[in-house]
């Protein structure tokens, strides 16, 4: 197996894909948002409940490629307990560092889908701004 392949589907990605963290539905969530990547059909829904400004609980469900689902799983672990404002301004590099693999532009969209949907949920729930870089993406996301 080539090194690149080893790297792309490294153990931690496959682990998050097969055993996603924060996977499921919050029945009485304060807010939920969903989105899809029309290019490859990745789908992610995110449910958030707040304790004041803090993200008390966050869960996701979805289907799609290993990169999109693993990155969203990692995101769940990263944001729980942080404030909506803090997460709304979360730099995408922070998530990409966690993902930790080189991504082509097409796969970058897969990796960032969950973060886009989460920021949308926070925008709906707490009125946090959607950063400029998400403006185009937000049009692709179905608000519910």
């Amino acid at each position, binding site marked *: 197996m080539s090194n690149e392949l080893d790297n792309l589907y490294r153990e931690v990605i*496959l682990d998050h894909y097969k055993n996603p963290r924060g996977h499921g539905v919050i029945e009485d969530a304060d807010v939920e948002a969903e989105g899809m990547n029309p290019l490859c059909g*990745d*789908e992610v829904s995110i449910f958030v409940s707040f304790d004041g400004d803090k993200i008390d609980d966050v869960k996701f469900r979805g289907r799609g*490629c*290993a990169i999109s689902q693993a990155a969203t799983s990692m995101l769940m672990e990263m944001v729980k307990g942080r404030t909506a404002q803090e997460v709304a301004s979360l730099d995408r590099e922070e998530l990409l560092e966690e993902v930790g693999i080189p991504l082509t532009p097409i796969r970058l969209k897969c990796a960032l889908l969950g973060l886009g949907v989460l920021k949308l949920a926070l925008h709906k729930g707490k009125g946090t701004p959607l950063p400029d870089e998400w403006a185009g993406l937000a049009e692709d996301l179905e608000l519910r």
Partner: protein
Amino acid sequence: MAVTAEKKLDARKLRADFPIFKQEIHGHPLAYLDSAASSQKPRQVLDAMTELYETSYANIHRGVYDLGERATEAYEGAREKARAFINADSTREVVFTRNVTAALNLVAYAWGVDNLGPGDVVLVTEMEHHSNFVPWQFIAKRTGAEFAAIPVDGDGELQLDQLDTLAASCRIKVLACTYVSNSLGTINPVGSLIQWAHEQGAIAVVDAAQAAPHRGVDVQALGCDFLGFTGHKMCGPTGIGVLWGRRELLERMSPFELGGHMIRKVTLEETTWNELPHKFEAGTAAIAEAVGLGAAIDYVTEVGVDALERYEHELLDYALPRLDEIPGVRLFGPPTDRRAGIVSFEVDGVHPHDVAQILDWEGVAVRAGHHCNQPLMHRLGVPATTRASFYLYTVPEEVDRLVAGLHKVRKTFA
């Protein structure tokens, strides 16, 4: 009919005509299994285009000088090749377009807007590429017509037993149907569908994007009213396709794009249109691309569409059982005899993008996604599939490498 030996296709020999196969991808020879998206180009096509640019290029249909005349001759020569390729009655019926999408948009707009209204039904199929689906859905909405689709069964074939029910309940004005499914390779019985459409008083529009590269297309034998095919899927360049239309229909239609070349006379008060097919070719044409398409038609014709079709069936007979026996791989689509060289499948528990990514590291190029077939994917109950497609340069070793790659996919995600 004279008895002649069946011409055999020699993929290994043809492969040498395609410069792209000289390279390695991630340290492996290129196994290109995405020809249904776009085919690779032989040296003959590239040379024809370069030669035009180097020796005979100028704008066409205008200049009285020698170069302009030679360029016009080359462009119109390509039109004649396209005419012969689909056995059209006249080059007046052969309109150059950007691709099949542009051809189908032309029909949907230029025919649809003036001929559709409330009470009319536009009938497509669930397996249409979005290019023969979305324009009709859009024009139906704009004109107040209804929009319906012939359903597809679990094997990816049209449910023709639904036709009589459809016919009884509505006034069908257009049937828009693909000849060959780009996702599943299903070869539809377009001949009988066209006949049925005419019995309903409807016109029949055929998307031959996947058919023309792989089998003989004869518009007179089919009896359809419009048919589109494109160059880039049959060894030609991008940016050039053909709309064939029945002359009396094209003559009655308003133009679609307006501007230079498509006019006869322009005054402040009104404008009259150029004769067919120029009425539908506004602006400077894709001249070199048309010449490239002409060279591609020569190439495919030299190989022989019958030989090509037989060879693709051999490849399918080789590939389908080998893919089917891989644990966790589920194949979509009909049996070999009703299928062109396209195989869509899913690997249990692995998203098509991950399948395609792992195959790419093995030098195997396949397509992953919805293939511009979202209604069909919905019907099959999958978000996307992985698709391998064959062409005249595909060799059995490439199928072997696909199979080996899929075992690697299974191992990675085990």
